[in-house]
C-alpha cells in the first residue's frame, strides 16, 4: 500500500531574528514524529532557496522591512495553500517596527540610519556613509506586519512561540483539527 502523501512545508525568515526558527527546532525529539507527516521544501533549515513545488503550508517569521522581504512573502503566498505568520515580528512588526514611530522624527528611517551609521556615539564607520550598494535590498519607508502585505491564514503569537505551541498547532492543522489555542498558551512575549 502506498504511503499517504506527506504535507510540504516551506519556511522563511524575513525581518526577524531567527529566534522563531530556533523555536521550531525546540520541538526537539518530536521533530521525528513531525517529519513522518511532512517534508520540508524551501527553508533555511534545508538550505533550499527556491520552491521546488507547491507547498501546503508556508511559515513566515518576521515582518517586511525591505523590498526583498515583500518579494519573498508574495512568493510564499503564491506557492503555499496556507500561510502561517509565526512570532510577533510577522504578526505586528515586532522589534523592527520600533523604527516606525519611536524616533520622534518626521523622517524616522533617515534618523534611524543616521544614528546607526553616522551620528551614534559608539560608531566606528570610517567612510561616514550609510550603506547604499545597489546589491542591498531597498529599505521600505516603514516596517510592515505580514498581514498588511498578503493575506495570512493563521498566526502563532509569541516572541518566540514555544516549541510546544508550534508542534501542537502544526499537528492539529495537518490533522484538520485546529480550533484555536489554549488561552493559557497565548503569549506575546
Amino acid at each position, binding site marked *: 500500500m502506498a504511503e499517504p502523501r506527506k504535507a510540504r512545508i516551506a519556511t522563511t525568515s524575513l525581518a526577524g531574528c531567527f529566534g522563531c526558527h530556533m523555536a521550531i527546532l525546540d520541538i526537539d525529539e518530536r521533530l521525528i514524529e513531525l517529519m513522518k507527516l511532512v517534508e520540508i521544501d524551501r527553508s533555511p533549515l534545508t538550505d533550499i532557496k527556491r520552491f521546488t513545488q507547491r507547498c501546503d503550508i508556508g511559515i513566515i517569521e518576521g515582518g517586511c522591512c525591505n523590498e526583498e522581504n515583500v518579494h519573498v512573502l508574495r512568493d510564499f503566498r503564491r506557492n503555499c495553500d496556507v500561510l502561517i505568520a509565526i512570532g510577533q515580528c510577522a504578526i*505586528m512588526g515586532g522589534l523592527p517596527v*520600533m523604527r516606525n514611530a*519611536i524616533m520622534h522624527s518626521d523622517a524616522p528611517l533617515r534618523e534611524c540610519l543616521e544614528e546607526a551609521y553616522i551620528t551614534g556615539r559608539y560608531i566606528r564607520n570610517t567612510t561616514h556613509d550609510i550603506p547604499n550598494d545597489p546589491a542591498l535590498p531597498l529599505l521600505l519607508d516603514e516596517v510592515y506586519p505580514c498581514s498588511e502585505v498578503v493575506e495570512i491564514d493563521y498566526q502563532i503569537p509569541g516572541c518566540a512561540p514555544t516549541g510546544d505551541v508550534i508542534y501542537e498547532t502544526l499537528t492539529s492543522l495537518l490533522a484538520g483539527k485546529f480550533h484555536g489555542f489554549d488561552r493559557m498558551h497565548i503569549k506575546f512575549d
Partner: protein
Amino acid sequence: MSDQDITFTIDGVEITAKPGQTIMEAADEAGIYIPRLCDHEGLRHQGGCRVCTVKANGRSVAACTQPAAAGIAVENENTHVNKMRRDLVEMLFHEGNHLCPICEASGNCELQAMAYRLEMVDPTRFPYLEPCRAVDASHPDIALDTNRCISCGRCIRASKDVDGKGVFGYVGRGIHRRVAVNGEDLAHTDADAADHAMSDEVCPVGCIIRKRVGFVTPIGEREFDKGLIGYEIEGKRRG
C-alpha cells in the same frame, strides 16, 4: 439577603445585588468575572474603556457603571459580546505602540492579559496608528512611557482621589484625548514613588514604570502566568 436586595441573572445564573450596586460589583461578589480595563478596585468607576460591555435585556451597557436592576437578564460570556470586547482591545493595541517583546510590563499587563483572555490571535483588519510619543524619564524614581498608555485614567483617579494630589489629568478631545502630567514633566510635579497612582497595580499597562525594579520578577513567573486575567474573581465561585 435583606428585603431590599435585588436579584437578576448573568448568563442564566441568579445573582443577588444590594441596592446601588453596579452589575460588575454584584458579579465580582458572586465570582463572575466581567472583563474590564479602566475600572480598578478602590477607584471611582469611569465607564471609559467599554471592555466591560455586557448586554442587559439586549442593550449594550458598561457593567462597571450600570446599576443592577431587579429582573434584568445580563449576557456576559458569549461569542457576540466577547467579539465586541476583542475588537475594543485590538483597537487599543493599534492606537498606541504596544510592543510586548520589549515591554517590562509583559506578563503583568492587563491589556495583554485581556488580549489573551479574549483570544486576540487572528490577523488584524485595522491599521496601526503608530503615534510618536515621548518618554518622560525626568523623575528620579518613575518613568512614563506614554507609547503604552491606553488613557484609562486609573492614574488620574488614584492621584486625585487616593493621594489627594492631581499629578495626572486628561488633555485634548476625541481621538486626541491623552493622559498628561500636571506640570512641565513628571519631575516638576509632586509625584512620589510611594503614591498609590504610581503603584504597579494602578497602571494596567507598562506606562508608569518604577525605575530599578523592572525585571525583578522574570518573564514567565508573572501575574498572568498564574492564570487568565480574572482568575481570582472566578476562583471565588469555584471555592
